[in-house]
């Protein structure tokens, strides 16, 4: 991003050497500063601060209380203790992690494979790209309902097709061991298009000359993929991992439509726990769930962001 920001300014700086590196004339500086008033921050700032920042900060306080919206009672860390003690709530925590890791892992692998496939010489490339991407734009609730029907244990299209092939499909959403994974698979189906499009952008930016040189040196397609595509598509990988982790950790719609956290609470995630506790009127506990989710997201995404970007700088 830095080069994009800097590029037009540098070009001008070369033309007119009297300018400072920031691209302002020294004399006109005061007048031009007035052209960018802080007042422009005001309308957006008011909305953002009252409806996002204040609630986020207030969450830390209310998570320590028993709360009815009108009245609160300070109870210390009881809510968090309950979160770690009750099996149903703890399950939500581990499920969230499993879900986020499984979906982002699969999106990275499938996204890269699809991107390589869709940049190679095959017929109807543009159409196929659109086809992979379209589910990203479709209503999550609609996708959830459709796949609930397709994954029906006995009559669903998936299992009836599998039985034609002689495979006995699992009960998907109604099987406690499969429920979370089934939803994760649907999430990958819906979201892999975005990963693919990001990877296509990355793969296309790799100069053809590298491949030609490698070919001359006798590298096969697999070696080319391993030694050229994979390392040079790294920025795209970083993006896909970060984006799908953020999405995966706060996932709610799909789980709520397809299983409602069930059977039992085997496919509950933190976001669905938050909703259930809210519905039950335990606002303090629900807010504690929000704080747990906040801490989880920061603890995973921030270090990862820092680590992956640092590695990139070293390359």
């Amino acid at each position, binding site marked *: *991003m830095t080069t*994009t*920001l800097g590029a*037009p*300014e540098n070009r001008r700086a070369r033309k007119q050497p009297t300018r400072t590196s*920031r691209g302002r*004339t020294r004399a006109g500086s005061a*007048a*031009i500063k007035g*052209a960018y008033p*802080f007042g*422009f*921050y005001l309308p957006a*700032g008011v*909305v*953002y601060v*009252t*409806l*996002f*920042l204040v*609630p986020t900060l*207030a969450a830390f306080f*209310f998570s320590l209380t028993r709360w009815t*919206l009108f009245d609160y009672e300070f109870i210390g860390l009881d809510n968090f203790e309950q979160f770690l003690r009750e099996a149903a709530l703890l399950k939500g925590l581990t499920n969230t992690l499993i879900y986020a890791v499984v979906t982002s892992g699969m999106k990275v692998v499938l996204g890269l494979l699809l991107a390589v496939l869709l940049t190679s*010489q095959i017929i109807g490339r*543009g159409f196929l790209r659109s*086809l992979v991407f*379209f*589910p990203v*734009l*479709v*209503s999550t*609730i*609609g996708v959830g*309902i*459709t*796949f609930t*029907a*397709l994954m029906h244990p006995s009559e669903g*299209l998936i299992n009836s097709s599998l039985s034609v092939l002689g495979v006995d499909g699992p009960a998907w959403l109604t099987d406690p061991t499969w429920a979370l994974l089934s939803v994760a698979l649907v999430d990958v*189906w819906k979201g892999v298009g975005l990963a693919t*499009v*990001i990877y296509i*952008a*990355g793969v*296309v*930016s790799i100069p*053809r000359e590298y491949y030609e040189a490698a070919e001359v040196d006798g590298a096969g397609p697999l070696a080319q993929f391993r030694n050229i595509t994979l390392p040079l598509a790294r*920025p795209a990988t970083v*993006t896909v991992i*970060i984006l799908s982790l953020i999405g995966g950790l*706060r996932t709610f*719609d799909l789980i709520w439509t397809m299983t409602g956290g069930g059977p039992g609470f085997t496919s509950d995630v933190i976001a669905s726990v938050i*909703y259930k506790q*809210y519905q039950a009127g335990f606002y303090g506990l629900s*807010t504690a769930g*929000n704080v747990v989710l*906040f801490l989880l*997201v920061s603890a995973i995404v*921030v270090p990862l962001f820092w680590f992956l970007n640092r590695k990139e700088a070293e390359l």
Partner: protein
Amino acid sequence: MSESRRAASAAVLPSARPRQRVRRPNYTLSALVAVAFLVVFVIPFAFIALTAFKGQQEAAQLEFSLPGDWQIVENFQAVLETGDYILIIAFINSVILTVASVTFMVVLGAMVAFVLQRRTSRTTGPISFLVLSGLIIPPAVVPTIWVLQELSLFKTLFGLILVEVAFHLPFCVLLFRAFIATVPRDLDESAVIDGAGPIRLFFRVIFPLLRPVTVTVIVVQSVAVFNDFVNPLYFLPGEENATVQQTLFNFQSQFESQYNLLFMDILLITIPPLIMFLFFNRQIVAGMTSGAIKG
């Protein structure tokens, strides 16, 4: 990261395809890929349409087959009439929500991005940090309800509009900021010398130049707000002001044995994003990849 970002916009333009030596397409691979894509990505959508056109008993079998008797019009009418035309009310609500919140996002987001990009000062760092946090932090639900209640905006469409604006602003700011960086500062200077104040400078000179990115923001955010399920669920509960995603979710339990009507509803709700996709495919991909790579 700049390299991949530039590539992102390149991938979007068909003219900017990678330079490749002319090779014969791989026919076997093409056929395999076509079949795989057909099974994985076409059949689910075909299933939605076919089920939506079937009669009730036929649809309940969940089979992938052509309808025995086509009940397109009957199902369409039946879905609309359900619950005193709740779907039409929901469509109106969703349209108001989408149009209003996206309008606010565009204007407010562009204003923030303009000052943020142009004016380098001590505040730039903290504000960029706030924008990034807005992208990463999951919103706290009940405290937001509490704030809305204090402002007596809870359970109002206007309250939900403001919530959508607050949650989607950071992404808009990032998209606008990257684009404004490509608009020469000389323009600002000449406008100021010609006597334009900041409001005129921004709305008359800069904002019209942001058209390409404005289209991207509008399209991407409209799809996001239209498809949003969680925020209306929390901040605008109640049958009478349901959005389309809400009605679809409610129909799931209501139409347990009427899969034809349920899928007709899915079909209807998929049409607006489909239209957006057909017309603005390029902008959507541009917005999602460029914003993504920075995020």
